[in-house]
């Protein structure tokens, strides 16, 4: 993953570059806002951007605003860099649309931790979350297509009884002749004859190819595995896709069904769903504060109420004093993301007047709201952006809190 650092101060930029590289990430440097903006227009623009507040041409705040109004780009994680550390400066930074605010001089561990949050957020806004969900649904179904669309390109992963039968990308070759082209002994004419036989008899092509002695079943399986594996990896890399699972009843024509583990990357097979009551520990968590009987009773009720909000994916309640998760419902909570927002909420002069904190990505909206004002506890909700209305969600979440 690449990170853009825009800073007119070469010394600060050099330190940040060294920190980013030490985290194993690639770093691009821009010495003013204009150069940074040009880099952000490119097709493979970095999706993690660190912007110095005060720099020539376009300052970091203005650049952040410009990034946020772009509708056609994938979500970009923006952190404002500044030697300003007054509360109003930090607030202004967030109001411009920044995800984070890092003060100079940089502290190594802090910057590295924030980079991990940025990476996690970017990953969560990509294809993987929805694709994981669709694949999980496909595996449980009797059959159907995981359809991944990015602008004019459509990828399909065809499932049959929980196993992978085929994968195809709309603008790439996918004929049997193309797949077997690398196996020199099979000619196009033979493939055509095999397909005519399949059409006439209803047999699948694997059986015919093997029966005619054109290829062994083992070699055919190896060839298909490699082909489908490559296709699925390319589908998973589609930028900003729409992903759905479409149940279909169709007969797979290949005759070779592959286990998902053979052709799909492990991170796409990992289920994100962990219905649980918690508690979970978050970074910084140490000491559990005792809960009153009333609160211990109310928290599960509140979580149940929150997770039933239309489009809610996960709900959790945290104690801000020690970072302890007091309970959670729904999908696994991104603890790094939550903790970065909790840290903001925990700033004393924000907390007293805080209604809620929201962060929106292309697929999700995250809302964090005080659950009890004193002692400070917060309720966190992750929502599927496509299926919810923000005003309704905020009102509904307000009804879940005690504060």
């Amino acid at each position, binding site marked *: 993953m690449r990170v853009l650092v825009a800073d*007119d*101060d*070469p*010394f*600060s930029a*050099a*330190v940040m570059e*060294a*920190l980013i590289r*030490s985290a194993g990430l690639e770093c691009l440097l821009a010495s003013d806002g204009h150069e940074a903006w040009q880099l952000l227009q490119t097709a493979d623009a970095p999706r993690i951007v660190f912007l*110095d507040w*005060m720099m*020539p041409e376009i300052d970091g705040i203005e650049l952040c605003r410009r990034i946020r109004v772009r509708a056609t780009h994938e979500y970009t994680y923006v952190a404002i860099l*500044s*030697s300003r550390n007054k509360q109003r400066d930090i607030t202004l930074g967030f109001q411009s649309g920044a995800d984070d605010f890092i003060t*100079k*001089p*940089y502290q*190594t561990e802090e910057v590295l931790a924030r980079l991990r949050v940025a990476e996690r957020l970017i990953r969560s806004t990509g294809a993987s979350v929805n694709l994981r969900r669709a694949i999980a649904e496909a595996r449980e179904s009797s059959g159907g297509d995981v359809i991944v669309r990015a602008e004019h390109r459509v990828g399909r992963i065809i499932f049959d009884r929980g196993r992978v039968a085929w994968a195809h990308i709309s603008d790439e070759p996918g004929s049997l002749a193309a797949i077997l082209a690398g196996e020199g002994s099979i000619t196009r004419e033979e493939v055509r004859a095999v397909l005519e036989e399949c059409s006439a008899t209803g047999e699948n092509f694997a059986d015919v190819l093997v029966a005619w002695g054109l290829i062994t079943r083992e070699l055919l399986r190896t060839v298909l595995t490699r082909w489908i594996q490559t296709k699925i990896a390319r589908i998973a890399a589609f930028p900003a896709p729409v992903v759905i699972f479409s149940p279909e009843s169709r007969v797979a024509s290949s005759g070779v069904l592959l286990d998902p583990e053979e052709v799909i990357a492990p991170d796409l097979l990992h289920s994100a769903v962990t219905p649980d009551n918690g508690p979970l520990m978050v970074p910084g968590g140490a000491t559990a504060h005792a809960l009153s009987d009333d609160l211990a009773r109310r928290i599960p009720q509140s979580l149940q109420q929150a997770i039933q909000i239309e489009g809610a994916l996960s709900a959790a309640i945290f104690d801000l004093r020690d970072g302890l998760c007091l309970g959670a419902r729904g999908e696994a909570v991104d603890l790094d993301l939550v903790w970065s927002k909790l840290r903001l909420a925990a700033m004393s002069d924000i907390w007293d007047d805080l209604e809620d904190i929201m962060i929106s990505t292309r697929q999700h909206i995250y809302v964090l709201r005080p659950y009890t004002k004193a002692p400070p506890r917060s309720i966190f909700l992750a929502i599927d952006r496509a299926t919810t209305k923000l005003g309704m969600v905020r009102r509904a979440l307000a009804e879940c809190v005690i504060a």
Partner: protein
Amino acid sequence: MRDRVNDEPVTNVHSPPIPVVDVQPGSAPVGAPLLDASVVETLRQLGLLGRLYPAFITALPDQIARLSAAVAADDRPGMRMLAHTLRGSSAQLGATALSEAFGVIEDALVRDGCSWSADPELSAELRALVRATTAAMAREAAATPDR
């Protein structure tokens, strides 16, 4: 501030004209370390100290000369940008006292109605602080083998 500054001569640093700004009495930094030991250690661990300190020592006179020119031309945005950059880069390199001194200048520029006047005492203090800081940086850089 004056008590903390070792006013020793530094041969590899020019003596640039120092911008003068009328700051409120007592607003100049007092007691801040010349170099923050933890930042020095971080830079050393990142393998940057031997490169960045000499570069900063070389660049600083020109930066201060540009700040002085901006002061002379009453170029407020230019002054503020330069003071801000010097404040930030000094802080990033652990030059806490110098960063705070540039911070005083930047803050004075930001303040509404700040007045400008020659202040030889402050100018001398800043010049001495620059000399002392760059000397300390030169010592650290010399003690750090290139990696």
